C-alpha cells in the first residue's frame, strides 16, 4: 500500500511506527476533546435552563 510493501511494513514504518502512531493517537485525542467538550457544555446549558424553568413555575 502506497510507498510501503505490505500492511505490516506500514505499521512498522522501519522502526518509527511507535513514534508516528503515538503522535497520531494524541492528535485523535485532541480532536475528540474539541468535539466532545462543547457537547458537554451544551448539555449543561440545557439542563440549567430546564431547572430554571421549573423554579420559575413554582
Amino acid at each position: 500500500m502506497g510507498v510501503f510493501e505490505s500492511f505490516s511494513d506500514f505499521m512498522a514504518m522501519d522502526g518509527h511506527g511507535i513514534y508516528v502512531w503515538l503522535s497520531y493517537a494524541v492528535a485523535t485525542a485532541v480532536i475528540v476533546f474539541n468535539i466532545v467538550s462543547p457537547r458537554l457544555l451544551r448539555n449543561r446549558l440545557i439542563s440549567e435552563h430546564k431547572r430554571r424553568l421549573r423554579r420559575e413555575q413554582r
Partner: protein
Amino acid sequence: MWQALVRWFHRWTSPKIFYQISRPWIFWSSVAAIAILAVALTWGLVFAPVERLQGNSYRIIFIHVPSAFLSQAIYLAIAIMGLVGLVWRIKLAFYAAKQCIPIGASMALLALVTGAIWGKPTWGTWWVWDARLTSMLVLLFLYLGLWALHNAMERQETGDRAAAILALVGVVNLPIIKFSVVWWNTLHQPATLKLTQAPPMHISMLIPFLMAIVGFYLAALAWGLSRTRLEILQREPNARWVREELDQLGSAR
C-alpha cells in the same frame, strides 16, 4: 463597497445575528475540514515518500506543524479580539476570545507532545530546554493562565477584561517563538515554509502538508464558531430569543 463591508461586519458583532448567520459557516467548514484532513493525512501517512534523513518519523510533521501554527494564530486572534472588546466594547469579541482558549491550548499541547515524540528518534531526546521548545511551553502556560483568570473572577465582565490584558501582554511571546530558531542556537530545525523562498520539500510531501494546515484551520474555525454560540447562550440567559433557543434545544434532545 466599503460601506457594504462595514455593514456586513457589524451584523456579525450582534450576538443574536451572529448566532443565526454562523450556523451555515460551521456546517461547511466542518465538511471541508473532514474531507481535506482525510485526504491530507492518508496521503501523508501512506503515499508521501520516505524522507531521506529522518525516515518515516517525519510523517509527524503533518500534525506537528499545523497544530503549532494554529496555537500561535489562535493566540493572536484572542489578543486582537481582546483589544476589540476593550476599545469598542463589543461583547461578542470577549465571548469568542474566551471560547478560543481551550482550542488554542489543546493545539499548543498537541504541538508540544508531537514535537517531543518526534524528538526522540531524531535528536535522541524527548525534551531540551532550548528557545523554541521553551517559548512554546510558555505559550501553553499563557493559555492556562487566561483560562484560570476567567474562572477566578467573580464577575465574568472582569474576567473578560483581565484576560484581554494578559493576552495582549503575552503577544510578545509570539515573535520569540517565531524567531527562536534564528536568534539562538537550537536543536529545532528552521522554518520549513518561508514566504520568500520555494519550499525545500518535494511536491508529493508539500501538497498533503499544505492541505493538513488548511484542514486544521477549518476545523478550528468550526469549533470556535460553535463554542462562541454556546458562550452567547450562557452569557445572555435572560434574552427572550436565548430562552426560546434553549427551549428548542432541550426539546429536540
